[in-house]
């Protein structure tokens, strides 16, 4: 033990030395910008115009402006719809359905379906946007398929922009939930299910009364995690619809980008980031809380 100690020295000092590159990087590029977000939200910083050379502290002006800005309201509503439909419901349902139905199926079938779902996940976001742009276009695949049923071509991205990006994001993200639910379902003890079966519970009752309560913890954790990932989605929507037409698919990240980098209102853009960040912080606290209580 004495030898051990002399090799290690003071563990706190050692930990600090070992961790210092990580601490420097995180302070500079993550913590720093978070603190800057809070500060700059209260300034009139801009890239062009008078305010560009003369950044001033303007108190809560950005926030009063924000809460009176109908575009902000629209983007908040769009963000909520996007999060709930795509992350909380869509990806969970598809991911669980695939994982659940795949249980005890033949290996080649399992892996083929798993691979197809994973293909959507590993495809880079910008490519996902292109292939779906083609898929949903006037002469695209979806309209071709619907044409067989006699349905006239629909300009999906113009007529249903928000629903379109919700579906595309489900397609892109569902594999993550599938993997999570597969892991959770594998942990369900077989004896419990067998016992329920012997007691006369049908498949539906076994799912509701036995399986789901056991994987509830995993489901909630996964839901929060996917919602966090979906909150930051920018590329997919930016490349597919640009937030439009009008503001029909503008979520908070798109609105932030428009204000900061298209309208050059960095102060206002940062105030919007702060809202995004606060939602992220709340969800992230929720996430570690669930992890903590489960351990």
């Amino acid at each position, binding site marked *: 033990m004495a030898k051990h100690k002399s090799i290690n020295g003071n563990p706190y000092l050692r930990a600090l030395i070992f961790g210092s590159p990580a601490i420097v990087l995180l302070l500079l*590029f993550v913590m720093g910008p978070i603190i800057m977000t809070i500060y700059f939200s209260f300034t009139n910083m801009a890239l062009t115009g008078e305010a560009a050379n003369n950044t001033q502290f303007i108190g809560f002006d950005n926030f009063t402006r924000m809460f009176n800005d109908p575009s902000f309201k629209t983007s908040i509503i769009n963000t909520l719809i996007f999060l709930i439909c795509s992350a909380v419901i869509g990806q969970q349902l598809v991911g669980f359905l695939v994982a659940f139905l795949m249980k005890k199926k033949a290996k080649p079938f399992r892996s083929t379906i798993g691979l*197809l779902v994973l293909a959507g996940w590993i495809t880079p976001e910008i490519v996902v946007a*292109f292939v779906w742009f*083609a898929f949903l276009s006037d002469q695209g695949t979806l309209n071709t398929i619907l044409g067989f049923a006699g349905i006239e071509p629909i300009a999906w991205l113009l007529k249903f922009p928000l629903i379109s990006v919700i579906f595309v994001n489900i397609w892109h993200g569902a594999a993550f939930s599938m993997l999570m639910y597969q892991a*959770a379902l594998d942990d369900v003890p077989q004896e419990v299910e067998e016992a329920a079966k012997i007691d006369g519970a049908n498949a539906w009752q076994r799912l509701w009364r036995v399986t789901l309560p056991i994987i509830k913890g995993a489901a909630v954790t996964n839901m929060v995690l996917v919602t966090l990932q979906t909150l930051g989605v920018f590329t997919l929507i930016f490349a597919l619809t640009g937030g439009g037409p009008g503001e029909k698919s503008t979520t908070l990240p798109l609105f932030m980008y428009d204000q900061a980098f298209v309208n050059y209102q960095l102060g206002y853009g940062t105030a919007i980031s702060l809202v995004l960040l606060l939602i992220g912080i709340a969800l992230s606290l929720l996430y570690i809380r669930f992890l903590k209580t489960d351990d």
Partner: protein
Amino acid sequence: MFSKKRLQTALPYIILTIIGIMFFIPLLWMLFASFDAHATLSIEWPEEFTLDNWTQLLTDPDILRAFAIGVFLSLGSSLLLVFVSALAAYPLSRYHLKHKNSIILTILFMSGLPMTAIMVPVYQLFVFFNLNDSLIATMLFLSASGLPYGIWLMKNFIDSVPVTLEESAWIDGASVLVGLRKVIAPLMKPGIFTVLIFTFTNSWGNFFVPFILIQSVEKLPASVTIFQFFGQHGMVFYGQLAAFSFVYTIPVIILYFMGQKYMSQGFSLGGASKG
């Protein structure tokens, strides 16, 4: 009764097959159009099969440079991340520190934050320090933004290496650093590859970060040039766009298959699935 039972067995297969097809069909366009001399947005078997889209793309010096920059950013950031996160994760796994749990929770908390939310101040930071348009600084930022999750994964992988192996190395006179390099690193290969592949893929596919932080056209990585290519020639060159998308996706597919056996391990250790 008999047919009902049969339907019940068949139903999962039918549903799964439909889902599988739905996941595959959008990708088919990319495959067909990239070999089509007259590609449109419609999905069709190439009437005139051609490799022109591919050869034109792969002989364009601008596009090759964009790929090289993409490799530089992704490889640089992932190698740095592996090194830095392994160093930081080691004491978190091995030492008895008083506030270890709070540190680990803080790291997990940070890994959940959407990095999109801090891009505006990061841009301001880059302008302030004159790092704007710098590939090195962009690479550092990509590393830093992946660090929390990287440290968390690494810590779990180090946890799985028995401490007794290391102690015998110390008794033989090795220092902690030598032990880390000679004992832990070889056993950690799966962990290191998982983190490396995971962060490489993330950086490779990242559009938003270079889009905001890099301005010079000749410094843009493939993730952004592909978007500009679409904006400039989109209406005409669908075949080339499809080929570009394809080439850009290939490294990710290869890495996925290389890392698959490690990845599943990473997933069960990733913690989130432990819920």
